[in-house]
């Protein structure tokens, strides 16, 4: 793992890609910092950080697209997978390397509240809580990017898919608010989701019977619940979709609240996507 980690960090810092990433985050953060905190003397640092989260949509895909896809494309994965290291070590090494590259601008950003402190009173606890949330948000999105890089062997496709996924997650609260919050609308959405899940299961296991049974059972359960207690569905699709809004879990940190729920959420996203990455790589060896 250490070997892979060292090699990856080095390759980011000997090519353009790592520096471009660090440059853009610092540039944007610098602009907002100057405008909000320095010129207008706004005391909350969290707001400045939340203003730049949109840049992850573009920078994370660029940073993560090559992690695993490129290895497959160049067939260097043959070296990694035939070496005495486990797949989890490979994935973890790669993730930690990208996380390290991301940690560099975050550490530099840590200096900003101190600059503000020179001109007035700043709550450092609130400011650094926001930085912690910012770091976790970045790590979680990087895990998503690493996963998509393991799905395809074309880095460009990996980048595009990661962008789309992150973009949809970013917009999903807005999309959810377009759906009426009546219980009927929620039921319709859930039924559609169950149907999609059944199709996906069929695609994965190629067994029509199992897929059909799962699909019908799911739809029936939804229908029964609706008949028994339809109020359960009111506005529930919006709540359900909000789970996928990664960025919104950063909101509490913005206001300087150490949101444990948010910490758990981000860590879960990281773990889930890294496990999925390991599974994707392992599964491919059986195909």
């Amino acid at each position, binding site marked *: 793992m250490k070997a892979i980690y060292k090699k990856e960090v080095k390759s980011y810092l000997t090519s353009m890609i790592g520096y471009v990433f660090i440059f853009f985050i610092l540039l944007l953060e610098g602009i907002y910092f100057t405008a909000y905190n320095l010129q207008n003397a706004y005391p909350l640092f969290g707001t400045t950080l939340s203003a730049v989260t949109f840049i992850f949509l573009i920078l994370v895909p660029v940073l993560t697209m090559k992690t695993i896809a490129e290895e497959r494309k*160049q067939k260097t994965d*043959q070296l*990694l997978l*035939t*070496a*005495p290291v486990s797949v989890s070590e490979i994935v973890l090494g790669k993730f930690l390397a990208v996380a390290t590259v991301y940690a560099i601008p975050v550490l530099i950003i840590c200096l900003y509240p101190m600059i503000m402190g020179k001109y007035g009173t700043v709550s450092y606890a609130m400011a650094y809580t926001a930085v912690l949330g910012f770091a976790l948000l970045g790590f979680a999105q990087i895990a998503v990017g690493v996963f998509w890089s393991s799905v395809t062997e074309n880095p460009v496709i990996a980048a595009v898919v990661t962008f789309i996924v992150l973009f949809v997650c970013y917009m999903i609260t807005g999309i959810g608010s377009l759906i009426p919050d009546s219980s009927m609308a929620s039921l319709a959405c859930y039924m559609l989701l169950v149907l999609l899940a059944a199709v996906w299961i069929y695609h994965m296991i190629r067994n029509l019977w199992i897929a059909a049974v799962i699909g019908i059972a799911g739809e029936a359960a939804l229908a029964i619940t609706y008949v028994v207690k339809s109020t359960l569905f009111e506005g529930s699709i919006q709540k359900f979709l909000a789970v996928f809004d990664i960025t919104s879990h950063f909101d509490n940190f913005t206001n300087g609240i150490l949101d444990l729920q948010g910490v758990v959420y981000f860590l879960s996203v990281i773990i889930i996507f890294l496990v999925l990455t390991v599974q994707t790589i392992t599964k491919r060896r*059986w*195909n």
Partner: protein
Amino acid sequence: MIEVKNLVKKYGDHIAVDHLSFHVDKGQIYGFLGPNGAGKSTTMNIMTGYIASTSGEVLIDGHNILEEPEAAKKCIGYLPEQPPLYFDMTVAEYLKFAAELKKVSKYERETQIEQVMELTGITAMENRLIKNLSKGYKQRVGLAQAILGYPEIIILDEPTVGLDPKQIIEIRELIRKLSEEHTIILSSHILSEVSAVCDYIMIINHGKLVASDTTENLMNHSLGSNTLELTVKGEKQDVEKMLRDVEEIQKLEWKPGENEKTVSMVITTEEKTDIREKLFYMMAEAKMPIMNMQFTKVSLEDIFLELTQNETAPVPDEQGTKPESAPKDETGTDTEKENETEQEAHDESNL
């Protein structure tokens, strides 16, 4: 050392490896031989744990490659068909990474990297970026990577493809040198390659083991020892009349002579009978000088073609729906060209 039992690998409906079983003993050079798409690379990829088999098992030094992957992989150094190189690293950086990945201890790393570079002749390239190296040097860097950590088994997938004749000879010498302390398995679709270095040959076709024996046995077993080529100065009728009395002759096949005064023929005799002396005195008595007489040379090529073509005939090419067959054919024409140059290279080395 290596025990392969009933290995099967299916890609959809296409069977790449079909119930392959063999075992490899310590300290010898084994050659996997087979036409393009025979399943050589797939077998090697399974043995090294890069891909998993559909069924069957591989034991490396007693360790199952799927159950104890790390212990098994530690015994193997692998050079895949396309050397797994990071183009934006220098040779030294790459080997350092490979050594660390293979868990070579910190204290041995430096010396081992130097030794390996020395062995493969890339010391001068140490600080060059891999992307700027020629194909031959890239191949050597790949080979150096496979040797790192001095694993007991070194598996090389087509190690000499794309190299020039001089490099091929060098790599062969290197393989022989390595075989003193390591067990080596190499694959090739080039026969001269395999017969030149390997102690033991396994011929694979359509994922099945067609023949496996020592190189010597494989050559001797051939029909070569009982067919004799003969050219005699004289009239055809006279020669025919004389040979009719030789009872060892089973078959006589006439060939066009070198010129009008000579006749040529191929004589097939019973197994393990040498009639050369008898023929010599016979012809000498009849004052018909023998211009040429020798056993037919049967090359590995003939054995190979005989074995693989017999196999191909009954198999109707998987209903022609092999998705992989098209790209493989493309590379096939490519490698065949290389094949020719290889052959020339070998001929040169024989001279």
